[in-house]
């Protein structure tokens, strides 16, 4: 469960997120949509405690990330928008290190890593240095890192960008399974189809403000565009329809 109450964040006086109040119930998948620069990544970083809110409060799994960032990071699997990996480690070693930092048992970490490599078709790349891996493969490694400790909360920032269609499918299946398991997922994206396929709830931010937050059914009910797709609703709410 994730709670944001009256959260604002500004960078040197420029508002990035304004008065954001939103609850993501446990076991739901929130499709977090918005045009580029709407404040999605900022919001996710606020949830991770990497940024401090200028006003308002944040709770992730009942914990304040500003006060107890480490506890939050134990409970969250985070996929950054631009993943960073140590290039001179192999995916296997990288997962080994992160597993150890999450205090997973060695044997358990190995089994989970093997399963994740299998799932994301990384097995044959697992012992190569990350230096030699392509951008998409690196993204898959970063995804495996986020899932390794089976966290109750997943924050995925643009998880599908740079992935091939097969992996996008794997990812979508994984998110559905996570939801069935009771994991709370925030999936920030601007690929509306992905959001429509896996989300239970939708939130749309525009210029730092929450312009829509409800269940997926309600969103589709309100959608007016062709075939009642999310695109119409999105364009209507973010005011980009008349420009484009």
């Amino acid at each position: 469960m994730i709670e944001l109450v009256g959260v604002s964040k500004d960078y040197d006086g420029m508002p990035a997120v304004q008065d954001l109040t939103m609850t993501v119930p446990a076991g739901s998948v929130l499709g977090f949509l918005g045009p580029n620069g709407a404040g999605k990544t900022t919001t996710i970083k606020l949830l991770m405690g990497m940024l401090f809110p200028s006003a308002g409060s944040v709770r992730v799994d009942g914990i304040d990330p500003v006060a107890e960032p480490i506890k939050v990071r134990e409970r969250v699997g985070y996929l950054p928008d631009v993943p960073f990996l140590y290039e001179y480690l192999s995916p296997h070693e990288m997962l080994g290190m992160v597993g150890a930092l999450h205090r997973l048992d060695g044997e358990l970490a190995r089994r989970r890593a093997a399963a994740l490599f299998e799932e994301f078709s990384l097995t044959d790349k697992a012992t190569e240095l990350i230096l030699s891996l392509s951008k998409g493969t690196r993204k898959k490694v970063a995804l495996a890192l986020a899932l390794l400790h089976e966290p109750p909360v997943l924050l995925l920032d643009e998880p599908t960008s740079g992935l091939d269609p097969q992996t996008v499918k794997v990812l979508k299946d994984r998110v559905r399974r996570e939801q069935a398991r009771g994991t709370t997922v925030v999936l920030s994206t601007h690929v509306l189809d992905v959001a429509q396929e896996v989300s239970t709830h939708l939130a749309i931010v525009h210029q730092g403000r929450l312009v829509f937050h409800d269940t997926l059914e309600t969103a589709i009910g309100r959608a007016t565009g062709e075939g009642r797709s999310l695109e119409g609703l999105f364009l209507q709410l973010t005011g980009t329809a008349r420009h484009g």
Partner: protein
Amino acid sequence: MDRIWALIRVKLTIVGNRLSTGSASSRAWPLLFRTVSLLLLLALLRFAVTWLEETGRFVVSRYGFEVFRTFTNLSLVTGLLLSMFVNLLVFVSEEFDATEATRDTNLLLALPLTLRQIVWAKVILRTFQDMYGLCLLVPPLVVYGRIMGLSSWGYLGLGAIYVALEIGQGFVGMVVYLAGAHRLSRSRLETFKLVVGLFLPALLAVMAAMLKESVNDGRIVDCHARWGFALGATPLAWALDGLVPGAALSRLVAGLAGLAAIVAVANLAIHHLGRAVSKLSEGERPGRVGDWLLRTFARLRWPVPILAVKDAVLTFRRKVFLLTSVVMPLGVASVNVLLILLNAGASRSDPTIQHLANSSMLVSVAFIAYLTASQSFGLVEQGKIPFLQTLPVSFHQVMLAKVVFWCPFVIATGISVKLAFLWCFGPFTVGALAGHTLWIVVAALLCTHAAVGVAALFPVFESGILGERRINIMVGGLLYLMVGLTAGLLLFGLRPINKAVLLLLVVLSWLGAGSQVLLGVASVAYLREKEPDPAVPLGFPPPSAGAAALAAVSVVTLLNLVGPLVVRFGTGSPGYFELLITRTTSLHAIAVVVFAALVLAPVSEELFFRGVLYRAARAQLGEVQGVVLSALLFAVLHVDRPVLLMALLGVLLALAYRATGTLVASIGAHFLFNWTNLVLYLWHRPADVTILAGLGRDGLCWAIAALAVPPALAFWLVLRLVIFRIASSPRHRAV
């Protein structure tokens, strides 16, 4: 040519945009900070030298003293050059580092441009940017120049040196530097030492590096090589100064030969190690190393060793790191060992030999600590501290892991030098070895501690994406630095038992509020060492309690009246303290923070900033300079608060001490300031404070009383029962 100008125009537009959107501060701060911190470091060094001179400790370590004096007598020139070289390193590596290369140069190479055009555009543009940088450097330079009594010619010379260094990208600048050093130094001998001892070998090293294709990581490595070998060559300067017995010429030849050998060996080692490593790194499987690593990770249950092992593997898998973390310490140690071996026939009782041993080790340990630790955040983490922020580890643990990993290199360097000394001059006994090893371990821990603190600050400032955590990290880094430097001051001539106590304090500081305790203890130890009776100059107990109280209340009243005006020019975000106290739900955490802010900070910071620093600076530099220097350092330590307000507080605290003649006035004012701020904060913004949420007015009053009154009592008790007593010299009481 027109293409070069087109490129420059594009770049200038980018710079202009940065300036107009306000993100220039992210550019200005690193420069300013780097400069100020280096100048402060030099001021501290100078302070250390003065102290050594005053206490006659140079008899114990005259040789190390010589090194320091060479540096600080030329402190302005050397200091500026140090900071300019650091700037140059950063500029060059920024312009040509891996990220820049992929983002920028690759983009440019896709356009119809030659590499030569791109490089020229970069060089010309950098010169413009450095002019801008120079404008930023001017205020701290003027302050520092004033303190050091620089003539107007000196300023002019400095400007010329700076510009020449930047335009010439090193070599031309060096020539100008030599002329500048000659103009500004006090004797020809100093100039000569500086020239030959520091730059000739460095030049050789760079030439050798350029000849070797294996060092192909561009100018970053080049610059590091220049630095490393320049530092390793310091003993050569001593040899030339006649400090090493024997004919100067033979020493010169020996030193140069030694350096040439080291350069050759280093290049050879890099070449072969590089080939061995490339088998691992060029897309091959990590193989057995990887298996070993995985098993190690699985076994280790604590973040610090896990992170340290990670650092080790990343370091050994990259050629660049091998140069700086393995070969360079070897080089520095070898030069020193060589000099010792060359003097093996001399007598141990010869003071010069002792100085040689002590200072060789000191130089090796201090410089290697800095060089290796600076790699840690720059190259190993690639400035990507945000990744570490996504893992369940604290920044403290990250810093500690760096200390744990780098320290063995530093210790090994120091011990190898010491072993050579004992081997040549004896006594080569278990007792002697153990005693020296303890010394070296403590020195290495302290130096690495300080070095990691400094090294952590650069990427924090360089990466704009860290967000508000940077305050947290900066404070942490500065505390590490202060701890290392302060304790380092005490290292000279301490008995082993005291070194052990210091070591214990360092460990305590790793655990939390210990750094403040250490600052206080180090200050008291220093004062007791220096003064026949420190209680008198500190005014313990106060000559007039009423005057002290009046001064304290006046300072706080004035500051709270002026504060709102001054704060407008500072940062707008709440300080680290407020963030902690408002967000945490742990009473234990609040208790520690409140105790540290209300009891430890006023006592230890006043003992250090006013009791030690202000008085020493006043004695050496004059009244105004003493106030300004102590206030500036005080403000720098409190970077999470509005800088002007903190500087003003520093000034007022020094004045309170000066007016009343007792440190009780400034300690009291410091306490009152922190106390009123806490109470006002709690009173005005109870809704922000998690543990106070939901309390009524009455409840709030009780909560504030519970939070603020016991520390006030504890403060008084600590002052009365502990500080007054330990500050009073037993010698005095006996009389």
